[in-house]
């Protein structure tokens, strides 16, 4: 075909299709936001946006709804889970890319990704039947008894050692988000050009110094992407958390005691809610989650921009 059609028309068409689809996605997201907003409007109207956000009472019988306990629960569990998951996830990524013998690379990578393949409900069931009893017997109870004897001031912070609560939910959540961070980190590390490593080795660096000095900084944007994806997963995770967190929408929370997250609150009450205000309050909680995701995204973008080096582009 004539060269100019191939070039210009091809470019236009391709760009056009890609942009159209991108636009479609943005419109879809606007639709989601609109749906959430119109569903949430009655509740927000009744309590006021900040009244709802900061309200500490969630009482379906009386028709009083405040999202603060659930909000705190989401923030605490997600942040803690991310902190717990980050180093193991990065370690697994480094292991696969840098340290593992050639025959072990693919299998280990595959196994880590497998953590993402397991349905959330499986994590919940496993957590409930396999993790919770030993956690209660060998971790929480001894700590509680020790604190009762030596540091009773800490007891309210620790909470009742039943095994079900903030602690076990956060542990399982951390496990669940590892593959999201690890996979993307792994891809980022793998795409660091060989020359970067070789240059450092040529300077006489040890393996770890190469990783720390050349590979990670180069891939840091990709690693960060993984972290953001993992955080997003943690924010929205429902099933496993719902089964393990004890579901008490009452502040103050303690480490071992029951808590609630926004996602678990919605999951628990959505199918049975028949009162319009109750339903609206649940959708409003969803809207709040949207806003939190927005906020984390803005912060993440700001951080990403600070990381000038983006790997492929100089």
């Amino acid at each position, binding site marked *: 075909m004539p060269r100019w059609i191939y070039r210009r028309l091809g470019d236009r068409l391709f760009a056009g299709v890609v942009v159209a689809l991108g636009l479609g996605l943005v419109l879809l997201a606007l639709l989601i936001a609109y749906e959430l907003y119109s569903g949430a409007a009655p509740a927000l109207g009744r309590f006021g946006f900040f009244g709802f956000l900061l309200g500490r*009472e969630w009482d*379906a019988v009386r028709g009083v709804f405040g999202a603060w306990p659930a909000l705190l629960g989401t923030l605490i569990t997600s942040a803690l889970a991310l902190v717990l998951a980050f180093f193991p996830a990065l370690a697994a990524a480094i292991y696969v890319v840098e340290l593992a013998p050639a025959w072990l690379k693919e299998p280990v990578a595959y196994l880590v990704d497998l953590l993402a393949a397991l349905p959330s409900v499986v994590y919940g069931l496993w957590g409930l039947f396999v993790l919770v*009893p030993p956690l209660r017997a060998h971790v929480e109870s001894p700590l509680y008894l020790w604190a009762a004897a030596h540091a009773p001031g800490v007891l309210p912070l620790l909470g009742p050692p039943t*095994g079900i609560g903030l602690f076990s939910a956060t542990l399982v959540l951390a496990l669940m988000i590892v593959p999201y961070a690890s996979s993307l980190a792994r891809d980022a590390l793998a795409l660091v050009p060989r020359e970067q490593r070789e240059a450092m080795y040529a300077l006489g660096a040890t393996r770890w110094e190469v990783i720390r000095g050349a590979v990670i900084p180069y891939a840091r944007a990709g690693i960060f992407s993984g972290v953001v994806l993992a955080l997003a997963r943690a924010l929205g995770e429902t099933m496993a958390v719902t089964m393990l967190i004890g579901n*008490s929408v009452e502040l103050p929370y303690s480490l071992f005691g029951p808590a609630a997250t926004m996602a678990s609150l919605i999951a*628990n009450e959505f*199918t*049975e809610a*028949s009162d319009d205000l*109750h339903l609206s309050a649940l959708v409003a909680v969803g809207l709040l989650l949207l806003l939190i995701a927005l906020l984390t995204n803005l912060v993440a973008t700001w951080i990403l921009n600070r990381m000038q080096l983006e790997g492929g582009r100089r």
Partner: protein
Amino acid sequence: MEVMGLRKLALFFLLGVVGLAQAGGVRLTGAGATFPYPLYAKYFAEYEKLTGVRVNYQSIGSGGGVRQLFEQTVHFGASDAPLSDAELKKFKDRYGTDVVHVPTALGAVVPAYNLPGVKKPLNFTGPLLAELFLGKVKTWNDPRIAKLNPGLRLPPLPVTVVHRSDGSGTTYIWTEYLSKVSPEWKARVGFGKSVRWPTGLGGKGNEGVAGLVRQVPGAIGYVELTFALQTKLPYGAVQNRAGRFVLATVETVRKAAELEDFPPDARVSLTDTPAPEGYPISSFTWILVYRDMAKNRAFKRFAEAKALADLLWWISHDAQKYNEPLHYARLPEVAVKVNEKNIQSLRFGDRPLR
């Protein structure tokens, strides 16, 4: 030439399939309560063998069922709690027809506990249960419990309350009963499918509550009778209004519904029942349909509405024999009579269905 022939063949095939789908069996869709799901699974499997009518029932929750009935994506809903006056009004205002309640079976909620060493079922009274769940009774050897259970050695374990974390009809029935027998409960907590619990741990579903109760010595929770019987969870007896300590069985639950003045619209609460031999924490479970089915857009033709009316009639009569083997109580005669009247009032436009 071959292509033309092939196309024609494909078209005929397609039309044939579509035509078959239309002319073939009636298909009904229903949604709602989780509690009767196993029973309805049995009902609808048997009904299909009898009549060829296929029913797709999914347990998305009572609240979900009512919403889908309102959105008219289903032919019938199912709920563990009757619709309130306000909810009925919503339907009436929008569609101009009533929602008919057809009770199909009875269930009960029982107090399940974990007390190592205690072999016989414990006796409870309503007010005592309220105090336990309010957190006012701290240990199991409290005199309030001992008084009702003379001769039983109660261990000095602390009381751990377990409740449902998810919204459920079970919670509704339990808290409705507590509200009736304890003014303090009514004032402080009230009743509903989700309430603000003064104390205790939340488990998800009957399974969650039972799991917690089994794991924590000194725990007390509430579960559906069917669940307790099926999983062999020990549970206690509750004193009814007539003063008897009644252990929930399919018999005592059915007796709870043998009321003298059974309301004609079947929207009746059985908790704290006046029936002398009835278990006081029992409840119906209902199927909900529009009185005038033509107003429900889910219905495409008369045959579907007729099939649903016939199904409801069959459930009220012949199908009751499937209840007790699955640990659900059967409808008492008085409820069946009311069902008959209500089913005969169902219409499709101006055509009666039975």
